[in-house]
């Protein structure tokens, strides 16, 4: 009886494996386009989740910071300074974004995210010198940095899928605001923090919006 059961089980396994191999074989015959379309939505799904989380964390970080140091900060002076990523031309309304191609959007997002790697590290390094560090400041900033890295990885994969070359997205905005962060003056120090917070918040929001539009576009496109 046992032998019979085993035999039948073996037969079932063999059949199922045969069928599976068939399926796998058929998949391998897919065109490159089909393969690309299969993975890009999933990548975008993951990317949007990351970008949303990054923005939320940044929002919390900046809110905590502002609550502590709002009296000291001159909003206008903060606003008057341009973000270091202002040199990157980004669309400022929906129509402009919708006009952009997938590739361009990806490159743009990579631009923005790469530009923040350096400043974030410095922000975290100098946070210890703050007169009063907000709660969970270090954890949140660490998390933001990690997620940005993950997002960049996903973006690079998407870029490859879209046929982009590495050279297409090597640029990034250089951050040159190190001096104020290193200054000893309390107000300059906190102002610099404030300014960085403000710029990061904006850029993460942009990235999130772009990716969500791209995701909707890609899923809509394939349903046509």
């Amino acid at each position: 009886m046992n032998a019979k059961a085993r035999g039948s089980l073996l037969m079932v396994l063999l059949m199922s494996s045969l069928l599976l191999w068939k399926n796998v074989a058929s998949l391998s015959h897919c065109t490159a386009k089909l393969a690309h379309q299969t993975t890009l939505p999933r990548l975008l799904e993951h990317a949007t989740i990351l970008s949303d989380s990054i923005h939320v964390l940044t929002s919390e970080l900046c809110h905590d910071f502002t609550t502590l140091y709002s009296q000291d900060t001159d909003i206008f002076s903060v606003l008057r300074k341009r973000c270091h990523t202002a040199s990157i031309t980004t669309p400022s309304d929906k129509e402009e974004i919708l006009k952009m191609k997938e590739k361009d959007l990806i490159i743009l997002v990579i631009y923005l995210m790469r530009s923040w790697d350096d400043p974030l590290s410095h922000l975290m390094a100098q946070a210890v010198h703050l007169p009063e560090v907000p709660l969970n400041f270090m954890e949140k900033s660490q998390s933001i940095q990690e997620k940005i890295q993950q997002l960049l990885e996903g973006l690079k994969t998407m870029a490859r899928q879209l046929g982009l070359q590495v050279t297409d997205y090597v640029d990034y905005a250089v951050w040159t605001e190190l001096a104020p962060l290193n200054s000893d003056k309390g107000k300059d120090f906190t102002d610099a923090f404030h300014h960085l917070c403000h710029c990061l918040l904006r850029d993460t929001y942009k990235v999130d919006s772009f990716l969500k539009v791209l995701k909707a576009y890609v899923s809509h496109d394939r349903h046509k």
Partner: protein
Amino acid sequence: MQENVTRAVVFTLLLCLNIRLLNGESPPGKPVIFKCSSPEKETFTCWWKPGANGGLPTNYTLTYYKEGEDTIYECPDYNTSGPNSCYFSKKFTSLWSVYIIRVYATNKMGISASDERLVDVAYIVEPNPPKNVTLEIQQPEDGKPYLWIKWVPPTLADTASGWLLLQYEVRLKHEKAVEWEIYFAGQQTNFKVLSFYPGYKYLVHVRCKPDHGLWSKWSEEHSIEIPSDLNMNDETTWIFVAILSAVICLVMVWAVAFKGYRMMTCILPPVPGPKIKGFDTRLLETGKTEEFLTAFGCQGFPPTSDCEDLLVEFLEVNDSEDQQLMPSFSKKYPGQGVKFRHPDRDNDSGHGSCDSPSLLSEKCGGPWANPRTFHIPKVIEKLENLEANITCTWDPLNISTEGKIFNFHTNGSRSSTWPLPQPSQHKPRSPYHSTAEVCKLPMGPKAALATVLDKSVKDALKFSKSIEIGGEEKAVKKMEVESFPAKTEQDTAWLLPQEKTPFIPEKTLDYVEIHKVNKDGALSLTPKQKNSIDQTEKPQASEISKEYVKVVRVTDNNILVLVPDPRAQNKEAPRSLQQNQAEKDTSCFTATPSNCRLHLGGSDYLDPASLTHSFHGQFE
């Protein structure tokens, strides 16, 4: 000259101002921009609250400039969003750049400016409430009825292109409730409410929120009347089932807790250990296979021709139900507990109670190392030989604590049985019996048996041996040892059929005392007067001392049931033996049989019970 003109103008203005003031007129109060919001992240509106107008018509002007730019713009649309508002259309809206907005109130008397308001459109998104909220009661066939709430996103919000991702929230309560139940609906545009009370009117609101924006206002109130006759039984049914199961579980737990042991034994009866009659692991360990085999009662193979000598002349079986030999085996000592029941028909026939553990022959080794000094083993040996003459074939063990039948083939065609105590009468104490052995007696069993039984008083102390006839031999002729002296012509057997033997009458127990044990291993017993169980009483006559008895069995009460030997001159009623000083000797049996000599100098009593126990103790 110019100075004079300037001074004149200033003076005039001041004069006018004074006149105005004297008239009660004043410049406008400071307006306040209280809200700026964008419904779809593409346009936005700012609303302000005017200050005191100073009694004069006041104009409000909104101006703004963007961060990093110097150009000041005026509000493009004052009307679309209502009074005291400025609507910035798509053309004038740029995301992710800060607008610095200010409102000026101007009247004849002066101008007032509001505080600057910083606006980044991306952070002021507050959509309109959802639209087209519909309420339905759905009653699926295979499930509970539910309230189904559906809506659509607000008109302006562009969710299709991914520009705005909206999340929704629903709140409902029935008319008379105080608090709202708020449910988060995610990004779906419908919601199912499963918990509601039939017969009430429910009020529902819906609102939405973009991914990084603000909650909208609650939608208009929609209501629905839940029918009273709605079938909401599923829940109650499940609650009933749950309660019932809980009650049952509690009852079971209680039962187990209180009567756990009994139940456990009922459910999981203890597994009886393996018992092989005649199986002595000690012998096995010693490596003396011969002894091991003999322990099973099979002495040599093929059997010798000495069987005839060993067969007793007769085998008297007392059919007293009371007197049964107890299989007093232990695990280790398979023994050849010769268990036989002596159906005693005559009152004066002795009951030998042979409930002794088997005394192995010399060949069995173990505790029975010294056969010389121990007569009983000899007897056993002879018994073995007797059985050896019987074709000994190894049978698979038939371990049964139920009545076992010693099958003792007589004359080849007949077989005698060495009956075991009936299970109905006695609970076999020893689970072990010697291996079933099919033996055929080539010769007259009675003679052999008699011979054996001559010495079999000690045999009585032997363990029963369960010999089961296999195969066709199953139909065992059971010899019944009728009385003492038994009919030698018959096959007598210590019969104890597995079933109750109805023909075995009850017999009273008589007591005998062991007079002596001769060198042949015969236990001389003297009948003991009933009145005096005085152990030191010497036997009256030496003749009496010559009396032989056979051990029939050992009763439950640890009484050795003996039957007087037919060759004995004095036919005395068998008596049950009481233990006495012979206990010393008996203890020899029990404790160290090897150095035991069954020298019962005086009138000693043997209590087979003690033997039994001691043997038990030995074997365990």
